[in-house]
């Protein structure tokens, strides 16, 4: 028990952050994560595939969680300050847990960086892959890959609606319409538990509904390819806006009806889950929410733009096909899912540009989507407009409002700060990738690296060029992949929690 004493001593010395208490919570969460390995174990047994990788991984994860819990003290209440540490460490460790079966039994992911990349991509619901031959995966392994996203999505719902607002990351306390139960001073653990209880119901409910609808399409013969297995696999990727598919060509082989259904569910997954909850429980119209309306408007405009460009460039003939390809891919990119119904990396320059812009915007706050979020983009537009107004009328005091409620200046500042961070990381990432790949001698247009940086930081998945929706991130060098792992991780946590950990003040009293 000397470790316990050591950590307690540590805790006394750094009165600022209760490291021991934070790690204790991490241990608990990792312990629960081990239960997730039961699912692929059962599948593997059913399909007659080796189950040992999942059993072994589950045992290791369980043991790790228990030990971590044991060597740290339960400590006092986890406050916001410990929250930064908890979320950062949980996502980093959970990705290792997910990576274990890949390392044990998937020859394409033998390299630890590749395995960790694939796992981080799953758990952050990014959907970028380093696999070259997806069809070669075992059925249970492919499903584990899908399932890791769904687990990540559960975490993100809580992260987005309970934790990040409490940590006031990027102004989300005021901006995210949340079903946050209880007042501010409630312990973080209670907030998380109550949010999880309410919103996981929505998440699981929508997941069940989507699986059912897709299965029906399969049973009725509308889509012969849509088996129960495929239905579950694509639900696991659509609800958390992940984007992995067990199909090498993503959604392309499926019938139009399936693509439309998946598109609509991605659209729902990219909206604030608190709105869903309210729509179901209190029958409140989601259309009264400013962010939701703007989100739909963005999707409409982008779909229209891409539809017209597809017709102009003669890529699709006018009709349902062109409209479907425009809509599903726009929704997929804007909600940061990353499914594709066609290799849009091969479309025109204008469509590539629209996709990169959508990658940066992302879905609604409080959803499983990543990137900047619609509400922040809208607040930026309002702040720009006010800046111009105040340049003319100096004395004018113009508060900004969202949904009719005034947003305080501290929140505006936090949003602008977040945007700068995001821009910095996005450009920095593109720059580092471009330099590294120039060094490593990879043949690719610089714009590909710009898109890759955006797609990683926004947890979207596919990039352009060789790393497009039907391609793979495999050609990137191990160093680039490590950078991309960091981008996915930081992007999912909305950057600030990670950046806070890097400041000296955080660790001091």
């Amino acid at each position: 028990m000397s470790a316990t004493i050591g950590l307690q001593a540590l805790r006394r010395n750094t009165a600022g952050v209760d490291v021991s208490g934070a790690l204790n919570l991490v241990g608990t969460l990792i312990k629960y994560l081990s239960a997730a390995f039961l699912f692929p174990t059962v599948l593997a047994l059913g399909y007659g595939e080796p189950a040992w990788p999942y059993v072994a991984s589950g045992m290791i994860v369980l043991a790790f969680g228990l030990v971590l819990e044991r060597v740290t003290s339960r400590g006092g209440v986890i406050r916001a300050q410990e929250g930064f540490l908890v979320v950062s460490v949980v996502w980093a460790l959970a990705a290792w847990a997910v990576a274990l079966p890949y390392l044990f039994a998937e020859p394409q992911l033998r390299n630890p960086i590749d395995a960790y990349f694939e796992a981080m991509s799953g758990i952050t619901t990014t959907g970028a892959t380093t696999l070259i031959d997806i069809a070669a995966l075992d059925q249970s392994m492919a499903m584990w890959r899908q399932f890791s996203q769904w687990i990540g999505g559960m975490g993100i719902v809580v992260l987005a609606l309970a934790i990040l607002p409490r940590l006031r990351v990027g102004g989300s306390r005021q901006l995210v319409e949340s079903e946050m139960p209880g007042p501010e001073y409630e312990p973080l653990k209670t907030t998380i538990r109550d949010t999880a209880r309410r919103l996981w119901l929505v998440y699981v409910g929508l997941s069940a509904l989507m699986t059912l609808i897709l299965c029906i399409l399969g049973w009725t013969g509308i889509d012969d390819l849509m088996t129960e297995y495929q239905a579950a696999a694509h639900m696991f990727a659509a609800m958390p806006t992940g984007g992995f598919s067990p199909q090498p060509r993503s959604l392309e082989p499926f019938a139009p009806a399936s693509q439309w259904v998946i598109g609509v569910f991605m659209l729902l997954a990219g909206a604030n889950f608190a709105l869903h909850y309210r729509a179901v429980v209190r029958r409140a119209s989601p259309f009264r929410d400013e962010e939701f309306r703007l989100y739909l408007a963005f999707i409409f405009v982008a779909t229209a733009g891409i539809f017209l460009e597809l017709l102009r460039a003669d890529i699709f003939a006018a009709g349902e096909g062109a409209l479907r390809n425009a809509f599903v891919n726009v929704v997929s990119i804007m909600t940061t899912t990353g499914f594709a119904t066609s290799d849009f990396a091969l479309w025109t320059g204008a469509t590539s540009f629209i996709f990169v812009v959508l990658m940066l915007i992302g879905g609604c706050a409080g959803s499983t989507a990543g990137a900047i979020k619609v509400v922040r983009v809208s607040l930026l537009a309002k702040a720009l407009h006010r800046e111009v107004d105040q340049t003319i009328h100096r004395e004018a005091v113009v508060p900004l409002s969202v949904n009719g409620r005034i947003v305080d200046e501290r929140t505006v500042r936090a949003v602008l700060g977040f945007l700068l961070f995001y821009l910095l990381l996005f450009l920095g990432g593109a720059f580092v990738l471009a330099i590294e790949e120039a060094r490593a001698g990879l043949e690719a247009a610089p714009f590909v690296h710009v898109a890759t940086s955006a797609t990683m930081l926004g947890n979207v998945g596919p990039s352009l060029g060789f790393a497009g929706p039907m391609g793979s991130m495999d050609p990137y060098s191990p160093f680039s992949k490590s950078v991309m792992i960091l981008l996915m991780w930081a992007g999912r946590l909305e950057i600030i929690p990670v950046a806070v950990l890097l400041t000296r003040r955080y660790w001091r009293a």
Partner: protein
Amino acid sequence: MTALGVDVGAALNLIGALLRYLSLAFLVPAVLALGYDEPVWPFAVSGVITAAAGVGLGAMTHGRERIGPREGFLIVALVWLLIPAFGALPFLLDEPQLSNPMDAFFEAVSGFTATGATVLTDIDALPKAMAMWRQLTHWLGGMGIIVLAVAVLPRLRIGGRQLLESELAGPQEVERLGATIRETARRLWVLYIGLTVVAILALASLGWSGADPAMNLYEGVAHAWSALALGGFSTKNLSLAAFQPITQWVILGFIVLAGINFLRLYRVIVQRHASLVARDEELRLYLTFLVVGSALVLIEVLAGGFLSGAEAVRSSIFQAVSIMTTTGFATSDYTRWGALALMTLLVLMFIGTSAGSTGGSIKVVRHLLVWKLIRRELTQTVHREEVLPIRLSGAVVDERALRSVVIFFPIYMGLFALGAVLLAIDARRSHLALGAFDAIGAAAACLGNIGPAFGFAGPFGSYEPFSDLSTGVLTGLMWLGRLEIIPVAVLLSRRYWRA
């Protein structure tokens, strides 16, 4: 007119006065043309047209001399369009390479905004008077930029007077520098002219002493004008590569000097407050950026084996400084250096000079404040209750000014991205072989008032291959970049025009 909130007449009145002054400037190339036995008429005709327009505008708006801050936005936006329009007349009248009005206007905007991007393909072919007029547009533009940066924009609340004055110890000192725009401008112009004279003498004496046979009084004047305005036009196809290393070093020194805030320079040189330099955070960061940028480029050039020895050192430092200070002179064709060096130069394009200099781009002080702001944001995320004012060289910067600084970044980057995309789309339309990186470079170089970009628009190249539409976009970027964007955005808002 009365229904408008802006007195357009008063704005035009001032522009009329500026046009009358501009007409006098045509005397310089006219005299040169007489001396070199070249055609005088283009300058004479341009001068007469400009004077007539100025007198006409003055007469039309007689009695409307009172201008308020509101008219300021309109004036600055129009000045940097109309002055180049008249300044382009000699190009249009008598320069076969610029017979296309769009090209002539581009060249003139590039001159007056001190950008230094050119559509000429053979600069050596210009008559001496015409080449010198081109250099003079830089120098005149520089005078305008000093007033714009130090006196006009801060009054319009752009950039913020605070950011310029910051540590200058309270209101008395501001007072001493001149309470009115006119007085401030006069003093800083004296400094600008003084530095130019020193630069001319330094360069010309290199020629007289035989240290650089290519240098003479004509070239000395031409390059001093361009250097002090941080412009980048040269009279030679080879830019500064046509001169000796010693000349390049001297010009480098003047570029570094011109990139410093002129208010600061005035205090140090004229008022001898040398101790201010050590306390000035912006100046320190500006010099740090210059050193780090030069070192990075040097390492990449040496590692890539593109140049070696003293030439590598000189050329790397020169290119890094020239690009970061938004000048655009070149001593070596950096487009042939590797991808790493080009990337570094691209990043330097977004740094720029100190506020209150003739340089462009984002400016060092904004980078400094954003860095401090980000640090504070992180601290306040954890320690919510703490109130942490942000200081610049010791003085607290007010929150409103900070907000303007932060907002400038997304506006600048947005416009840059839009520019790059428009260029890329138009290049595809007009079947121009323009890589994505080159499109990005051209947009950054014009918006930042730098000049040369990458690819065919490199330092020894030309913007000539761009279509008229792209040339128009680039002209717009130079104009917007020079005005720091906000005044133009203001003109586009409906509230501005209402009473």
